């Protein structure tokens, strides 16, 4: 399972980057950024995974039962919050860009050169 999870993380990372490079639409760019970030969620969770272990809610299980690493889960949650902030700012910029340029194609803006 774990090898597959690392593979998924790597795939999401690369496919998201490829999407950002190829995208002709700012909303698409924002979604691809989220895809890249998803790879970090999968990576973090895979790092903390233990085969056959329980969810780390220690109140509900007997002492001594193996649990998956709660630290990476906390990190993932923080990462999700960060991602939400970044996506909000990017989407706000995309809305303004559409108002200003009348298009969402990042290559059609081109006021900055050289």
């Amino acid at each position: 399972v774990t090898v597959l999870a690392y593979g998924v993380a790597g795939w999401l990372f690369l496919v998201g980057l490829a999407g950002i490079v190829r995208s002709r639409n700012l909303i698409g760019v924002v979604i691809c950024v989220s895809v890249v970030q998803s790879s970090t969620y999968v990576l973090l969770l895979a790092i903390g995974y233990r085969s056959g272990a329980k969810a780390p809610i220690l109140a509900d299980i007997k002492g001594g039962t193996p649990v998956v690493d709660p630290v990476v889960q906390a990190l993932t949650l923080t990462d999700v919050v960060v991602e939400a902030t970044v996506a909000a700012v990017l989407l706000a910029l995309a809305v303004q860009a559409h108002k200003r340029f009348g298009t969402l194609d990042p290559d059609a803006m081109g006021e900055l050169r050289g």
Partner: protein
Amino acid sequence: VNVLAPLVVAVPLLTAALIAAVGRFVGGRLADVLALAATLACAGLLVAVLARLHGRIEPVWLGGWHPRDGVAIGVSFTLDPLGVGLALFIAALMVLTLIYGSGSLDPEPPHVHVLALVFLAGMVGFCLSGDLFNMFVFFELMSVSAFALTGIDIDEGAALEGSLNFAVTNTIGSFLAVIGIALVYARTGALNIAQAGHVLDHGPVDGLVVVALAFLVCGFLVKAAIVPFHLWLADAYAVAPAAICIVLAGAMSELGVLGVVRVVFGVFGGPVAEHADAVRAVFVVAGLVTAVLGAVMAYAQDHLKRMLAFVTIAHVGLFLTGVAMLSVAGIGAIAVYVVADGCGKAALFACVGIVQRRLGHVRMSALRGRGRELRFTGAAFTLAALIAAGLPLTGAFLGKALLDDALTHGVGAWAVVVAIGATALLGATLLRAAGCVFLGWRSSAPEGDYDPLTEPQPTTPIRMWAPTAILLAAAIAAGIVPGVRHAAHVAATQATAHTATEHVALGNAASPTTHGALTAPPTHDWLLSLLTAALAIGLAAFMLGREGLPRLTALRAIHSGRLGDYVAVLCAGAAIFGGAFALALQ
């Protein structure tokens, strides 16, 4: 110290929340005052923290979660003179930014103040953090507020475009960093820098360690804008309001360099020390390529702020060569250089802001000779240009001379020759701009009619010229105030003390005190520096004697302003750095 350190981050954040909550009811003036008061309080707290640190390292365990048996279980600030000093510098720059910007940045509703305070909290927290994941969180906090501050003039198309390029490339940089952090955690089970470093010291240097190092370093180098990760910076700084550029150019890029310092001396101190020569080669080449490319691209610019953006890139390249020396001398040199040069660059942006207000334009070709009446601004710009060229008796001279010595000892005189060439070209480029705009000497375009982009204002208010003068005074003072070399030595010694920091940060030992100072630059540095300044003036005269700017078609094509291209180059750069580290740590 223990009590005050968390307040340094909390005060700006809470004030930002307060302004966001009540700002629309109380008006922009009060928001100005509140934001300035919070920033001054943050700076004051940092002075107190620094004074009580006595040049030592001190961990602050938040929430009282102290290490047990030398194992970190909580989250800490690890205070060291370098981090606290840089944080203080940032807070001071933010004070000047707020003064400079009050009135020119739209205060109603006071979004700028909220963003500026969050930006400050993120940067300061990043400097103090002793925990990798918290570094990432503070990094994101400052990045997101910087994206918004850059694009704050939403009526400007270029501002939106620059902000978008900035946001997407830097967000990818943060992902690189967070992947590196995850891999470090996978290997060491620790997020505390000292704890992770301690485990890595005793473990094997295998593929995982190399990949983690490459991801973390690349993540921070995106923020530092090292070639080939630099493309976003020219766009972002060219469009950000001048007031924001003071703190962006003066401090934000340098935080990427601080991140690299934390990575190569803290987390990976053990593995890097084993392969010091090879790692040094990677960083020196990256730094010098950045310095030269930045200088050449600055030379090719007509847009003054974009020119200064490339100057910033070139200087960060020089700072990276200082880190590359992996020595007390190298870090000490850039500690001085960052402060002096940061003040000088901030003053340049401040001057351009004044030019923009008075003349309504920022293109050299449109401004030629129109700045003749701006005598103070012209003098200030010229002085700042000479500081950028490393004029003797300024802080930039001291920093540059110390860096040259460190480079000579670390890799050899050829690196110094390249660095001097880049510095002279930068100085010449800036002097050419001064000659063209403020004296009407020949360059780029004929003197003719021009349409101001914005309505020219008849006066320069004191809130704009006073911060400019203070910045210039600080840039000079950093070179002549006694004790600078001692302070830099202490900061560098503690920042590079890998094993000692681990023991102190994990509560196993008291922090050692350090003595001594970096040796004063020898006579030949004075001669070299005068030579650089003379070379800069000569080159400037040569440039002013020619019509037009160099074409550099291929180089300009790389800086295309296209987001997709930037991300593709970023990925290629990360792959190159990854390969280089794999070879270096073999």
